[in-house]
């Protein structure tokens, strides 16, 4: 059991309400609270107590879920808490909190999925939902497992204090400090906004193979934005830091960076213009440029699209797709990184999965269903937004490993092109392979040197084609620091991405006419 000590977890229950210095909105039936010695790790039994269930109740629900003969079922219990605080016009005058509580029940038969959920965790409500999900299956019944065994997982996101114990009075001064600095740094700043978002998610997952897991997943993010005005022209920019972090992550240095990067990125836009459009060489800065991988290859490697034959990568496993110095992984194990997971949402271990190794396409990203379809081990990519959704193969932290070149020689090798530094969003068409990502800021490269700043251009390419055009990979790998969220099938999950500085020999850049 990871993340929280047993004492923390129990405190986070009903008792936490009384212990906290500042009121914290939290939902737990007071009857479920109990006492345990401080410092002890939370156990599966603590989770059972938290959700008001036990092994025999879970097995009864599983029996209902498999009553029409499904091959497999799982129960996903979730209790999550979110908080958002907003500073605007120099005042923290908006706060919102949310609590979400429920259980999702999935029945799988072959490649078919039946799904239902209930927000009421009572034996009756759960069995009713289970019978609804069971409708996907045929006729004769199956049996639940004889016993559930607890599958222990490592902790890739240790934090000092769970977010439910951090009062709003600890967060507000951080926002005010960032705002004060943003406003003071440059007289051109006319508006500043700062957002503090944090959340705690407790999950308990049990499946009909007899495995039970539990996890505490913290998340935190501060976003700073400002508008600056110069000679009647307005520009807006920002910076954010995110991860599976505790409040200790927001050190004086990180608070300072949030303010100074926000102002720097905004006022530099006064010098920037849209470049000329067309095909050209593109250098991607280390870090959040990893959005290229997420869109160009990551989604296309999610095995559900391949299982259905709809991905452009469907027949490319084992084939050379890139230069030998290109290796790409999807990892769930990076410490305190936003896309990390201790265990996936269907009880499988998290891992580092190699999508491309030395230029050769190696492994898809699997959930349980696609792993069974392909007859391989799951890769721990079965993720879901909440108990309201069945899991799908999803990315975690997707990045390219360092290569043989340097950043300087990569930039110096470009005669005419653009250097891309910050990004806002991307998209991909899985079948056609077309992918895009939107560049918020960067520079032109002329004769091997960074020159005039550029902004607001969309880059568009074809995934497999673009991979073959990655001609240089530098040794300066960085993970993105900001809060990336990936959407698929109506579900959002937190992810991260990363890249060393790389050069793509040709890509279509949006821009003004020549």
């Amino acid at each position, binding site marked *: 059991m990871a993340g929280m000590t047993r004492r923390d977890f129990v405190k986070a229950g009903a008792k936490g309400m009384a212990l906290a210095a500042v009121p914290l909105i939290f939902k737990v039936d007071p009857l479920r609270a109990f006492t345990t010695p401080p410092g002890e790790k939370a156990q599966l039994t603590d989770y059972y107590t938290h959700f008001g269930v036990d092994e025999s109740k879970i097995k009864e629900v599983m029996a209902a879920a498999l009553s029409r003969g499904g091959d497999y079922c799982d129960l996903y219990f979730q209790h999550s808490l979110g908080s958002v605080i907003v500073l605007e016009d120099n005042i923290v005058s908006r706060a919102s909190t949310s609590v979400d509580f429920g259980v999702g029940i999935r029945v799988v038969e072959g490649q*078919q999925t039946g799904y239902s959920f209930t927000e009421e965790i009572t034996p009756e409500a759960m069995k009713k939902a289970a019978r609804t999900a069971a409708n996907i299956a045929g006729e004769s019944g199956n049996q639940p497992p004889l016993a559930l065994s607890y599958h222990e997982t490592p902790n890739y996101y240790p934090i000092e204090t769970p977010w439910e114990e951090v009062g709003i009075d600890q967060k507000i001064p951080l926002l005010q400090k960032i705002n004060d600095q943003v406003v003071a740094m440059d007289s051109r700043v006319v508006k500043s906004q700062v957002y503090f978002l944090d959340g705690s998610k407790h999950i308990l997952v049990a499946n009909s193979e007899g495995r039970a897991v539990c996890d505490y997943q913290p998340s935190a993010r501060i976003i700073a934005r400002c508008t600056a005005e110069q000679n009647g022209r307005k520009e807006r920019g920002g910076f954010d830091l995110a991860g599976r972090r505790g409040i200790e992550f927001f050190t004086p240095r990180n608070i300072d960076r949030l303010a100074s990067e926000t102002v720097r990125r905004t006022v530099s836009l006064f010098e920037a213009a849209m470049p000329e459009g067309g095909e050209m060489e593109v250098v991607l800065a280390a870090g959040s440029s990893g959005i290229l991988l997420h869109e160009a290859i990551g989604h296309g490697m999610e095995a559900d699209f391949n299982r259905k034959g709809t991905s452009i990568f469907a027949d490319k496993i084992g084939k050379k797709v890139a230069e030998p110095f290109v290796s790409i992984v999807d990892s769930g194990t990076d410490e305190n990184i936003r896309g990390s997971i201790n265990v996936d949402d269907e009880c499988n271990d998290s891992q580092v999965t190699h999508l491309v190794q030395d230029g050769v396409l190696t492994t898809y990203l699997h959930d349980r269903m696609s792993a069974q379809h392909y007859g391989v081990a799951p890769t721990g990519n079965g993720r879901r937004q909440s108990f309201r959704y069945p899991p799908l193969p999803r990315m975690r932290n997707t990045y390219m490993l360092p290569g043989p070149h340097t950043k300087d020689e990569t930039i110096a090798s470009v005669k005419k092109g653009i250097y891309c530094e910050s990004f806002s969003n991307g998209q991909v068409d899985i079948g056609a*392979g077309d992918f895009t990502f939107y560049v918020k800021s960067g520079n032109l490269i002329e004769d091997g040197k960074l020159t005039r700043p550029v902004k607001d251009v969309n880059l568009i390419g074809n995934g497999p084609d673009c991979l073959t055009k990655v001609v240089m990979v530098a040794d300066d790998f960085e993970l993105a620091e900001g809060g990336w969220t990936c959407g698929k099938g109506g579900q959002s999950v937190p992810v991260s991405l990363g890249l060393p500085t790389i050069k793509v020999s040709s890509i279509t850049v949006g821009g003004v006419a020549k």
Partner: protein
Amino acid sequence: MTNKERTDLARWAVKEALSAGAQDAAVDIANWRTIEVEYRDGSLDNLKESVQNSLDVAVYVDNRYSSHTTNDLRRDGLKKFVAEAVALTKYLGEDPHRGLPDPIYYEDRETKDLRIVDDAYDSITSDQRVKTALEIEARARKLSDEIISCTGWYEDTLAESVRVTSNGFEGTRRSTSFGSGLQVTVKDESGGRPRDWRWGQVRLHQDLLRADDMAKGAVAGALAKRGQAKISSGSYDMVVENRAASKLIGSLTGPMSARSIQQKSSFLEGKTGQKIASEKLTIIDDPFIEFGLGSRLYDGEGMSTRKRVMVDKGVLQAYYINCYYGRKLNMTPNSGGKTNTVYTYGTHSLDELVGMMKKGILVTGFIGGNSNATTGDYSFGIVGMYVEDGKIIKPVNEMNISGNLGELFGRLTEVGNDPYAWSSNRRPSLYFKDIDFAGL
């Protein structure tokens, strides 16, 4: 729970907030019942049924404000939840602009029946739902041997909600919606696996898109994309098909929110009464359309809705103004939300608009890209068809259009006669003159 019971619970929660020390409070309680069915490649793929609840409480304590959401509607827990909400709010900054709407904005609520509930909802059976998805998928699969995968789906939702405030507002809403759709992926010798889709949402079950029309449209659309490739960069006329046009319209209407204006993140600040588009563009927000997906008698704050002209023949008339930012801007609030967005439509069909292009691109979809609300700059990826002398020549993709929204909408030379009926944004197809495309 019925809406009557929800109203009782909301009244009780408002009282609880006041007795915990709030001067004002608003409570929203909502419930959705949704069933979704997916049929893929000849078999049932997904079946999902769900009921969900939410209760939002907004509290105002000494000019301070916060809002809180839970899905646990039991009174014993809620009592504590509301008390905690009030206690937490005391830690926030004082802001004189925070507060419930002035009750004058609750007055004169329209009483018309918007006809957004289908009485047939209760009689729809599970078998019928599965059969609808099956039929869409089967019709499509029959149409071509080139299909790799196709998925047909069906969903329906019954939504109910109530709102109660401490300064006299009470409202209840009930609506049904039905959706069905199809996605088709086909083989392509040139390497890709092009796909196309049709999808529509409606208020009445009987108005669902016909399976045949969806099948023909999506299969033909996917097949037409085979061999797609980028073409030379340059200036082309552009027709944007109505189903894709919301991306461009949304880039223009997003910066019309009072928050964007007040926070100085809108290129439309100070532009009311000025031309922001060609005279072909008139945008109206109409909350009272029968069967409309955006139809409502009151907005999220309880303000009675009114028909609003947002853009009249290219001239910006109004912003979307909620109470908070209205107070900050010293502007009269007119509702921060959108209802149904309708337009002054033209006389030409999509085919006729395409026929009018000498050298142009019919955009059938946008991929990625974004716009900068503060400056109006945009850059979007496109997929579509290259057109010469009014005839479709070949499929194109992997190209971008870029520029400034003010300039783009200045080049709007025609709008179609074809409102997109499957969304609350009933945009027509749009014809733009001389747009920069980046490709080869």
